[in-house]
């Protein structure tokens, strides 16, 4: 029943400005697919091209193999959940949800049946005859979700649906959304700028910047094996350091940061040797070495104890600030001003070309 979405070389222009220039991407049937990126990266623009609120200036979008470029929005059979919920304030919960069914001329008793069914799925059946105006954001969002899926759309589109909720509700609702999506099994395109949200709900994520897709991958790969420094710094936190790839032979690569040298076995073969690279290390991928001189020499500037973990803010000789996260030991917190050395967990870190555009990690090799 679920359908695929194929976006082929689409172009979007607002006046003379080209926002998206030849973007392609394929979404599998039943997939929960997320467009993730900073504001202004074109993710909402792309979503609105799929639903039809934005025209398509070039290329084509296919749903289930059929080109939909010229089908008006109200004939596209897609459900959409909006950032501000867009609940009709003058209609009861029931009438909000029945609105799409009435437009489709569904018989009255079936409308009744389907509304009741969906109210149970989104768990607001007790609110059926109430007016939505004074309901909480979470309840309004459930109405919006019910209203979008009750019409049995081919595709469900969500535009930052959780950004108006408080932190606790956000977690609760994102689990609810994921669960309902799996239950209904509908191809879903989800737009967000919140990386944690994207990691939590998606089957696959497309990271976008400046109208261009940076990486399409599973949440795990996007976090652990980012394809460039934009993705590595946008998803989670990464310390980017200058390094040199000294040699790369027989699957053993020697990398140097300052005077600290370490070996990696998952560097692609064609990266050459004796070339400058960017080494991307997440705060939790450092090991603090208090005993020996091995590692990058740094000075502890300050620290924050957060229970499970302790964050250290340290500075290298060159003045680069680095964040390090360690799981809290029972021993003393390292005092400010203390000089220590940082080693890296070589299996986890990422190495990029000097301009940061290309990953040198060979994903075929298990580190």
């Amino acid at each position, binding site marked *: 029943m679920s359908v695929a979405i194929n976006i082929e070389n689409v172009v979007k222009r607002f006046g003379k400005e080209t926002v998206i220039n030849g973007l392609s991407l394929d979404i599998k049937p039943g997939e929960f697919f997320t467009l993730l990126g900073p504001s202004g990266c074109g993710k909402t623009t792309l979503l609105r091209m799929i*639903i039809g*609120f934005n025209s398509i200036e070039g290329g084509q979008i296919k749903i289930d193999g059929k080109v939909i470029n*010229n089908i*008006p*929005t*109200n*004939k*596209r*059979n*897609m*459900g*959409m959940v*909006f*950032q*501000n919920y*867009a*609940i*009709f*304030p*003058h209609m009861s919960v029931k009438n909000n949800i029945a*609105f*799409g069914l009435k*437009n*489709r001329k569904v018989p009255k008793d079936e409308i009744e049946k389907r509304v009741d069914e969906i109210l149970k799925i989104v768990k607001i059946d007790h609110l059926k005859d109430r007016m939505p105006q004074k309901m909480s954001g979470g309840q309004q969002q459930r109405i*919006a979700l019910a*209203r*979008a899926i009750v*019409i049995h759309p081919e595709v469900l589109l969500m535009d930052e649906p959780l950004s108006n909720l408080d932190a606790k509700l956000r977690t609760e609702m994102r689990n609810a959304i994921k669960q309902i999506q799996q239950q209904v099994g509908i191809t879903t395109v989800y737009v967000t700028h919140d990386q944690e949200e994207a990691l939590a709900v998606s089957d696959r994520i497309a990271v976008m910047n400046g109208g261009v897709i940076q990486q399409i991958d599973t949440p795990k790969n996007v976090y652990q094996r980012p394809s460039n420094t934009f993705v590595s710094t946008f998803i989670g936190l990464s310390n980017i350091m200058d390094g040199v790839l000294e040699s790369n032979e027989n699957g053993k690569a020697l990398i140097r940061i300052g005077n600290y040298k370490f070996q990696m076995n998952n560097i692609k073969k064609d990266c050459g040797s004796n070339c400058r690279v960017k080494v991307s290390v997440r705060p939790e991928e450092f090991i603090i070495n208090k005993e020996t001189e091995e590692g990058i020499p740094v000075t502890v500037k300050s620290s924050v104890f957060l229970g499970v973990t302790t964050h250290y803010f340290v500075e290298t000789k060159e003045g680069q600030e680095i964040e390090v996260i360690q799981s809290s030991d029972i021993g003393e917190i390292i005092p400010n001003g203390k000089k220590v050395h940082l080693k890296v967990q070589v299996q986890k870190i990422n190495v990029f070309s000097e301009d940061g555009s290309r990953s040198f990690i060979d994903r075929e090799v298990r580190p």
Partner: protein
Amino acid sequence: MNTAKKKLNIWLVLALAILALFLIFVVYPLGLILYKSILMEDGTISFSYFTKFFSKKFYWSTLINSFKVTIASTLVSAVLGLIMAYLLRSIKIKGSKYLNILIVISYLSPPFIGAYAWVQLLGRNGVITRVLNSVFNTQLGGIYGFAGIVLVFSLQSFPLVYMYVSGALKNLDNSLNEAAESLGCSTVQRVWKVIVPLITPTLLASSLLVFMRVFSDFGTPMLIGEGYKTFPVLLYSQFMGEVSTDAHYAAALCVIVIAITLVMFFLQKYIGNRLTYSMSALKPLEPEKKTGIGNILAHAFVYLVVFVAILPQLTVITTSFLETRGASYTGQFTLQNYKNIIMPKNISTITNTYLFGIAAILIVVVLGVLISYLTVRKKSFLTSIIDTLTMFPYIIPGSVLGISFLYAFNKKPLLLSGTAIIIIISLCIRRMPYTIRSSTAIIGQISPSIEEAAISLGSTEVKSFIKITVPMMMAGVLSGAIMSWITLISELSSSIILYTSKTQTLTVAIYTEVIRSNFGNAAAYSTVLTITSVLSLLLFFKVSGSEDISV
């Protein structure tokens, strides 16, 4: 593809139809006025009517007089309105809720009724004048001319400043006050350095509204001005006068008024844009309970001002129950005046007022909602032209509109003069800019995604406009419509030019009865008008659920 094209056409057709209406009923009459003002009787083009105006003191002095009374009344209104608003917002005054309503009522009645009531009180034969003359054994001549006009306009216009400033003070966060206090400001410094600068834009904007209103009003100086001739009086007498009427000269005078109001309009826009702060109060200014002499003085001042402002209404209502013989009162109470005005030959005055008002409101609301929707949601070159055109009537004084209509629609195929239609259209045109502005504000508060949601659920654009947007706008539009209705039934300046005996409305009847010295009937008509306004105002409070008025 086909359906998309069809939908587009509905909005396009609508936009073109609206454009056509405004071209016929706004641009064409105004263009005609411009043309006539430079067209000589022999068919040549020249500016000699303008030279005529500016070269004879008899003519240009009216302009000076107009500026004098307008500036004086605006200043008094601004000061009075500011003080009243600050007192009522900062000090707990007993019965402030009712005072508020009385202030609004004193504003809603047409200014010329105030003029005629004050003549009854302070005129040559006025009640108060006679008392003063007999007590002090003097021969006071009554309040006419400059002083009379300024008195009437100030009392009638300060409520406008009051309402605006009061609204601005409501949006002023009290923590600003507290912050200033904690930084070592004294009370006086605080008012002067924090509050006054923050409400200055509102004060200026409302003062300019008063200016434009007073400048173009002709009923008041006509009734209380006597020898003191203002520009609108000159315009009216040039057009309607018994001695000499010169249509082309009147057209030239119209052009002069439009030029002046245009300058004022842009001045207001300029100042408004430059000085606006957006504020919204989390912790509004709360009226404090005061004790001692300050409290007594504040109460005395507020009550005195409200009493004086509402006095014309009280006078009119009282005199409506007094028996009259010609222009004088016998001192007996009677219902005869009311019997007179509901006689079969007179009742049409009341029914006309209601019919014209309701018809105009319906048209204005429907067109206003459509136009604001087009200009907000369907932005295009065409709709931006409509946006500008629909604001034109804002700067056209009523009498000018009336005159231009008579020029434009007195021959076939657009023979409308003398009909009810021409009055209804003129009422629509006059009120249109206000309705459009308030509808635009309402649409601006509705998120476009609500309509998009409806479309994504399979509804057409037209259907989502009718089923979603219109119902959501209704509450706001309805309360706006009630305010428009109150304004329309008190309209005089264009109706007085366009009416015939068959299309007489309440304000026209009051005016003509006053001119004929039938004070009993005039008072009875005025009372009907006042009661209608008060009831409508109460309805407004109920519908809008707020106590704030925006006019």
